[in-house]
């Protein structure tokens, strides 16, 4: 990749004023498939423009796990909108270096869609070999918190996550029991939302069959 292509794309982004122009410029930046584009793409996430941010998010996910350190350092903690998109990218990349961020988002974020993405991330993060036990425990604790969320879609994501994590051979008996108990509760009438019940029943059926 030549530097000039990146520079050109950045100039185009700089000059863009309308949403269609911004989308186009961001698409061009993504198409370079260049790690150097990660930083400006994170900046784009902070423009508070969902159409543009959606394009940048896809571009960042395409760049793969190599961008995780860049993501974590270029994240402007005060820019609420940008944080939400970064959570989505981290969740999609499944990189364990994002664990802190996901835990924090699940606990503190007001937007249900962000807590949903964070929960999904805790379900799917690939754990590091040297810290698997500790990380698995943290994922479980997060998922058990998500089980008590007020929003149905976060509880639904928690069911999905508990099912994924309960398949793992590395789960301690203690965690497995807690996870099963949570699924049983979500499958019962104590859960007010039918689709969450249905999903929990399906998870239990598959876990019991396997």
């Amino acid at each position, binding site marked *: 990749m030549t530097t000039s292509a990146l520079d050109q794309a950045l100039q185009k982004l700089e000059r863009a004023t309308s949403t269609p122009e911004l989308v186009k410029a961001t698409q061009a930046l993504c198409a370079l498939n260049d790690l150097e584009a990660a930083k400006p793409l994170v900046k784009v996430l902070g423009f508070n423009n*969902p159409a543009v941010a959606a394009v940048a998010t896809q571009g960042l996910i395409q760049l793969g796990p190599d961008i995780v350190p860049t993501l974590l350092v270029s994240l402007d903690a005060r820019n609420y909108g940008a944080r939400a998109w970064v959570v989505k990218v981290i969740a999609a990349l499944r990189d364990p270096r994002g664990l802190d961020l996901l835990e924090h988002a699940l606990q503190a974020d007001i937007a*249900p*869609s962000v807590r*949903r*993405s964070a*929960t*999904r991330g805790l379900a799917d993060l690939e754990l590091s070999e040297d810290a698997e036990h500790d990380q698995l425990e943290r994922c479980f604790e997060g998922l058990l918190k998500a089980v008590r969320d007020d929003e*149905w*879609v976060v509880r*639904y*994501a928690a069911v*999905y996550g508990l099912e994924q994590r309960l398949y793992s051979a590395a789960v301690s008996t203690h965690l497995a029991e807690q996870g099963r108990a949570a699924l049983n509760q979500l499958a019962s009438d104590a859960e007010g*939302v*039918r*689709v969450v019940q*249905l*999903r929990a029943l*399906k998870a239990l059926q598959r876990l019991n069959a396997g």
Partner: protein
Amino acid sequence: MEPLSETQVIKDLRQTEDPSAQYYAAWWLGKMRSQHPDTIPLLLRALAALDAAPIDPEQRGVALNAIRALGLLRDKRAEKALLALLHCNDYTVREEVVRTLGAMGSCGAVEGIRALLASGLEGAGAEQPSTPLLNEPCEALLEALGDIGDGSNSNLAVIQPFTEHPRPLIRSAACRALLQLTGLDQWGMELKKLLNHPEPLVRRGALLDLGATGWLAAVPSIRSAAVEPSLKLVALRALAERNDNPNDVLDAMDELL
């Protein structure tokens, strides 16, 4: 802030000095699905403000919230009072009442709703001069007929013309109702076309309408529609809850999380 207790909220709705406290209380009782014995009587009392002349604008707001709360509580005791309000000359009141009666599945409302739609595209479906409103809240009326589920020929005949309405969201509501009442794929195909509409608002509306119909053939189009995942999950939830074997729907939901 301390969370409100139900006792306090009931007290807030009963008092009459502070309408904003009443407004919030009416909303809260619906949102929390209150089972308190005074809930329904007090919500019904709030509707009385709509009979006054002139109507106090603050009490009108409380009454509108009470109507919405009754839609969440779905208590048959409210039906009679709501049916009377179908003839209210306030457009927004009619709209909210129709939504509530639809949510309650009120068979008693079918005739009244049909009467409001009977004048068709030239009457109910025509635009009011110098406002964005139609003469009747057609979207809510069509949706309610579909939700109540009476597929008699006279209902189908009243709905059908609205599938040709100039506004895409009205067409969407009409197709939704016809799909619910007849189960015919042709109405589902029409809704799928609306999922490709250039306006995001229309795509969102058609997506939620498809969800409400429980039509399983909609799953692939819902997955690929250009609509945000949060809304797709809401539509798929509706679809899953209306089917005995929602496995494919749940798989599609897992992918969107």
